[in-house]
Every structure is written in C-alpha cells, then in structure tokens.
C-alpha cells in the first residue's frame, strides 16, 4: 500500500501540488480536513481522490483548452467576408472517437473505484477490534462499548492503531429518532445513522490526538450543534479511561445534597448516573460527565458556569435542544452543579 501510494503521488505530484497548497494554506490545526487523512479508510479515499483529480484535471485541461482555443481562434473579425462560414454537419469518425475515449476513461475510473469500495467496505474485522455502538439522537451522540459495559456521550474514546499493533475500531451505527450521519473527515467517510437499520464502519487512527467532526445529515433544529469529538488514546490511556468509565458515579459526601436534587427532580427521567436511582435514557449518560471537555454535544466548554447556565436555561447555548429548562431555584442549581462537578 505504502509503496503504491508513493508511486502514485510522484506521478501526479504536479496535479496535487497546487491543490494541496491552496487548501493547506487555508486550513488550520483544528480543521476537520479530508486532505489530512489519519486512518486507513480516509487514506485510501484520499489516494483515490488524487488519482481521480489527476484524470479529471487532465480532461479539464484538454477540453477546456480546446474550448478556449475555439473561442479565440474563431471569433468574428471585422475583416471577415460577408458570407457565412463553411457549414459542417458532422463527422461519424470523429464522433465515434469521442465516444470511445470517454468509455475507456470510465472503465479505468470504475476499476480504480471498485477496488477501494471493496477494500474499505468489506474489510474483515480482526479479533482485536474494539466494538462501539453509536446511536444518534436529536442532537447528541450516544456511544456504547458492549464488551466493556461502558456508555458515554458525544466524545468517543478509541485506541490508536499503529501499523505494528493494529487495533481498529468497528462501529455499529443506528438512530433513536431521525437520520443522522457520523463524519470525522480525517478518519473515514461518513456513514448514516438510521432508525431500524444498522450500519457499520471502521476506523484505525494511526496517531493519537483529537479528531473533530459533526453530524452530516440534517436532523432538525440544532443539527449544526451536533458536534462530534473523537479522542484517539494511547493503549494505556485508553485502558485507564475504560477502567474509570466502568466505575459507578462518585458519591462524595459534600455533594450528597446535589445528588438528592438530581434524584428527586426530573433530571433522572432522562439521564443516567450509574450507582444512583437515575436510569433515564433519553439524554446523555452523566456518570463521568467531568471527563468530557464539552457540554451539549460540543455546543460549549465544560465549565461550572456553563454547566449551571445550561441546567438553568439550555436555550442560552442551544435553542431547540430537547433538554427543558429545569426551573430549579438558585440554591438547587448550585447544589446540582456541585454534584455534577464531582462526576469524574
């Protein structure tokens, strides 16, 4: 794969150069760029795209060039005779030629494409693969790790999968309500999440770090704020993260009042915190809320002030999110925020 790619890159370096220059100059560090692939499916698509750009770019130069030449060379001039130009009605040979050449190009493009379709879509799942089930909700993501018994939301943690010790992640995708689409451009193309329908995809990020994406299928009012973060951890980090996620929610004595508020108000109807009476499934699991960098599917940073304001009036950040304003008084707000802040 590596050598093939290099060969191809050299061959089409010219076509790529201007293209990548333009886009890389414009892109910044946190850009979810399809041009900076970091996982096998994304890489394969990127390589294929370079090949396709080279061919279509060639076609553009030839056909566009002919068109430009025709326009320049055959422009009407003052010196033209008053008669009409020679009328030419067609030529079977020429037309046959420009039917056959496109057919040949289509054959080449199709074969190159088919190879990648089967390579990505029908890739066998190795035994070491991590399984994740992703469930789309209006307007957030639920992630379940069936092997580990872990449930989390909006921020997916997966292990890095270097070439010497591959550990890809295989996702099953479905939806609890309307259609959504899971898209982390640097890791793979998008796959839709559809209720009553299980889709699959896989990613094997080669480098640790944070990869950004968002829902790519219009899913209603706050579709734009259905952001997605994938943390690619080292194996140690990932194991530690899983271990922590498997713990029930912390129960610190000084936060007991807040927990009581949580359990006696409507919060528990929609949210779950393992080890408590709260087992709701309509909203994100909050057992380890403080391990997440953002709230409301990336709508804002996870700070105590934001959290308190979110509980008080979700409309401030994400008007149309299905979480209602909880109508708590200031004291209850402080207590429940303090409790949630302990859920590490």
């Amino acid at each position, binding site marked *: 794969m590596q050598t093939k790619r290099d060969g191809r890159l050299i061959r089409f370096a010219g076509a790529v150069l201007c293209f990548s220059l333009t886009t890389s100059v414009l892109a910044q560090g946190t850009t979810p760029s*399809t041009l900076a692939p970091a996982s096998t499916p994304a890489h394969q*698509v990127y390589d294929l795209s370079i090949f396709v750009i080279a061919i279509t770019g060639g076609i553009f130069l030839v056909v566009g060039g002919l068109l430009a030449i025709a326009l320049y060379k*055959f422009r009407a001039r003052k010196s033209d005779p008053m008669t009409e130009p020679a009328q030419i009605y067609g030529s079977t040979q020429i037309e046959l030629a420009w039917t056959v050449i496109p057919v040949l190009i289509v054959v080449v493009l199709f074969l190159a494409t088919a190879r990648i379709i089967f390579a990505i879509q029908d890739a066998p799942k190795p035994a070491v693969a991590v399984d994740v089930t992703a469930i789309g909700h209006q307007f957030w993501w639920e992630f379940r790790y069936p092997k580990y018994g872990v449930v989390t939301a909006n921020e997916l943690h997966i292990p890095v999968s270097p070439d010497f010790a591959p550990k890809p992640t295989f996702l099953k995708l479905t939806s609890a309500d309307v259609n959504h689409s899971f898209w982390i451009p640097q890791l793979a193309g998008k796959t839709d999440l559809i209720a009553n329908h299980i889709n699959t995809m896989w990613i094997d990020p080669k480098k640790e770090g944070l990869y950004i994406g968002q829902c790519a299928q*219009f899913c209603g009012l706050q579709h734009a704020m259905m952001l997605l973060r994938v943390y690619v951890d080292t194996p140690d980090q990932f194991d530690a993260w899983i271990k922590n996620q498997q713990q029930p929610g912390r129960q610190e004595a000084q936060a007991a009042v807040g927990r009581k508020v949580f359990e006696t108000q409507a919060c528990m109807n929609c949210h779950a915190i393992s080890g408590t009476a709260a087992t709701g499934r309509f909203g994100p699991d909050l057992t380890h809320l403080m391990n997440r960098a953002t709230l409301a599917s990336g709508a804002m940073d996870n700070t105590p002030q934001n959290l308190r304001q979110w509980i008080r009036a979700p409309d401030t950040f994400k008007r149309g999110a299905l979480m209602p304003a909880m109508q708590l008084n200031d004291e209850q707000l402080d207590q429940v925020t303090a409790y949630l802040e302990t859920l590490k």
Partner: protein
Amino acid sequence: MSEYSLPVREAVDSALSETTRGTFLENLHAWVVTVDHKRLGILYILYSTFFLLVAGAEALLIRLQLAYPHNQVLSAQVYNRFFTMHGTTMVFLVGMPFLFGFANYIVPLQIGTRDMAFPRLNAFSFWLTAFGGFLLYYSFLGGGGLYGVGNAPDVGWFAYAPLTARSFSPGHATDYWALALIVSGFGTLGTAVNIIATIVSMRCKGMTLMRMPLFTWLLLIVSMLTLVTITPLTAAQFMLLIDRYLGGHFFDTQAGGSSLIWIHFFWIFGHPEVYVLVLPAFAIANEIIPVFCRKAIFGYPAMVAASVAIMFVSLGVWAHHMFTVGMTSVSNAFFTLSTMLVGVPTGIKIFNWIATLWGGRIRFTTPMLFCIGFLFQFLIAGLTGIMLSVSPWDWQLHNSYFVIAHFHYVLVGAIVFCIFAAIYFWYPKATGKLMDETLGKWHFWLFTIGFHITFDTMHFLGLLGMPRSIYTYQPDRGWNFLNLVVSIGGLIQGIAVLIFAYNFIRSYSRGKIAGDDPWDAWTLEWTTSSPPPVYNFEEIPEVHSRRPLWDLKHPDDPDWEYEA
C-alpha cells in the same frame, strides 16, 4: 437581417392587426383567462422570475448568516426554513416553470403550429403550478397551525423521513410543503403531457422527427422524463400525508416503517429531476450557440442520440445520492458505474458544441456569452460529478459544501446561465424589443465573477469538512475566511441579478426595436413578427430541412442537400 421572412406573411399580416388597447382590467382579465401558449409561456417566465428573486433573497440571507462564525442574523429555526424554502423554490418554482415557460412559448412556434395540443389543459397546468407555489409560500403565514404564529417548512428540500413525521415536525409547515408539491406536480404533469402531444401530433408539413430543432427534441425528451419522475414524488408525498394524518406507517420508524423507502422514492424522482432541469438548458444552448457562431450544429443525430441516452441512463443512477446510507458494496459499485456512464453522452454533447464553434465566426453577444459561461461551468460540473460518483470519495464529500458547490455549478452555472441566455435571446421575439447589450454585458460579467467567487470557494469548504445545512459553525474550524469569500460572491451575484431585472423591465418600454429576426437565426419562430400574432402563422409553413430559414436565406445552398 429582417428582410428575410416567409413571403406568405406580408400578404395577410397587415390586414389582421389587432392593436386595440383595452383598459387595465380588460387586459388583466385577458391574461388570466388566456389559453394562448405564448401568453402562458410569458406568465410562466414572469412567475419564475418573481420566485427567482425571492429564493435569491433567501440565499443572500443564508450567506449573510454564514459570513461569520456564530453569527446571529438568523436564528437556527429561521435559517432552516430559509434553506428549505430556497431549495424547494429554486427547483420547483423557478427551474421547472422557467423551462416549461420557454417550452410553451417556443415549441409551437418552432414546429410551425398555432398553439399547444391542449390549450385549456395548458392554462389549467399553469394555474396549478402557480397556486402550488403560492400555497408553499402561504406556509410562512399559516404553517404554524395551532402551534403558534408564522412557520414554514424546515425539513430540508429532500425532507428525509422520519424528520417529517408529526412527532418531529409538528404544525402544518410540512403539510404545506407536501401539498404544494403535489399541486404543482399535477400542473407539471399536465404540461408534460401537453408538450408531448403537441410535438408528436402538431408538427408542420415536412418536419420529420429528425428535422425538428434540437430545442424541441430535448423538450420532448424532458417531458417524457417528467412523466416518469414526478409520479414517484407525488406518490411519496401522498404516503407522507397518509403517515401524518391517516395512521400510515410507511416512514414511521417507531412503528417498523423505513426511512430508506422515502429516500429511494425521493431520489428516484430527484436524480432524473436534475436532467429534467438540465436538458432544457442543453436545448437552449443547442439553439443559441449555432446562431452566434454562424454554423449548423455539429452532429445533430449524435446530439439527439446522446440526449435520449441521458434520459435512459439518468433513470438508473438515483442511489448515488445514497452512498452513505449503508448499501452493499455491490450496489455502491453498480451505482458508481451507472453514474460515471452518464458522463459519456454528456461528454459527446460538450465535444459537439466545441466542434460547432470550431470554424465558425463567433459573435460575443450577451446570449452567447451566457452560453459560453455555461460550457465552461458545465464542463467543471460534469467533472466534479465524476468525482462524486466515486463512491468512496462520496463518503467524504456527501452532504458537504463540495456537493453544494457541485450542484450549484449545475443549477446556476449551467441552468441559470442558459435561462439568462434564453431570456436575452428570445426577449425580442416575445416583446419586439431588444434587451440592452451594455447592461447585459455588465450582468454577465458581474454574475460570472460572483458565481466563481462563491461556488469555486465552496468546493474547498467541502474538502475542509464543512457539512451543509448548518446555521452556524465553530470559529476554530478554519472555515471563516472562505465563508466570508463565499458570501461576498453571493452579494456580487445579487447585484448582477438586479441589473438584469432593471434591464428586463427597462427594455420593455425603451429597448431598441428588434424586428422579426434580430439574430439572423434559422428556426421557424423567427419567421413570425415580434411579438408573433395570436395565431402564430397565417399559413402553416412547410419545411424541407432542420433550418428552414437557412434554406430561405441561401436558396442556392440549402441544407436539405447535405442532411443525412
């Protein structure tokens, strides 16, 4: 060159002058009850020009909102309504009526007949289409139903189920959307039937199928395609309404229904719909390019064959909108191949247009400039279409701004450019006045520059991972500058369209007198006066070749000696 005309006309025309002017109300009444194909054609075109301005304004507001990250010009709700209405309007209330308007006006003239086959069906179809549009826009006032004040559809123009279910779309906005498309869909079907009947049965003496002007040929193909494609859309809308009000479960996933059924139905309509819109654009280019390079179209039989091929192939490519819904690898490969194959007949067309230009004497009038813009932009649109047909790459590009850029290259860069070309080209026929060339060139250059600033840039936003249908974006994504550029381009296009609107209105009273045949063209519509009389032709003409006026103007060297 208006000294050329069919000799029969002079004999009768002056005797039948009908220039008695009524009061305003009488005139208005005459327009409302008209069954004249030319008046209905003009009504269609005015109607779609009006909605072009409306949907254009929506687009500008969308771009204003997206000019900066976290901008708050529009709320999420209003933004979602605007992009839904923009898409629905442009496809159903602008694209189709524009093209049917031209078909109505031009086809009977080109085939040498006095009206459409079913004049009253024609009027009925127009008013169905028109009221469909007004029904859709009435949703801004009435769509909230019992749930509140103003509302409009906010489910996206392809309205994927189950987002359209009553649990996710309360109120009546979605009902207005479905009903409006059903109503205007029936209008569209009526017109399509009418065009087919007219072309099949009302051609003048000597006009065999292979002597029909390509414009007429392509409209015949489009009308047949329309019959096949509007039907599943209408069926799907009925299913949606049954789901919403009669307890159906076609798309109700909570009750075991399937979202995929809607998606299939929609794109079985939706993809051929693209060709329903773009083939008339080809049709327009087929008429204008030969006239302004002074040559017969190159490879007429190949152009006809390619158009028929596009019709058939376009019925087998719909699932390329569905590469991400989780089809099997074999299905993905199949639809990749079928989609790529569309490129072959389309390529033939582009080559034939270039060959037509080759050896000609090209006059860069405003309609020709728009056609040249069309050729370049359609070439690019075709190539980005090939990129999107590559299904693995489509997994990345689908629903991103790359797709938005691609289909605007088709819908604006090809179709709207050809619509503008057609308006500049046939305006003198319909009004007797030429549109102003200087303003026309301002319009062309500003619009082209704005178009490229906007839509070229959008491709890169898509590659950088920006999805469509989002009312705002995070400032750290690297999309800020490009979005601002896109919005500025939109503004330039808006200014260009205003120049066009001014030119359109001003030329009606102050334009230069056009004469019967201002472009020295070759098809039958240019033998009539400008505007043509109600009955079009005093005596039904007889033709001997594809270019009856060429034969007339060059009796020593007529076309029929060369045509195969």
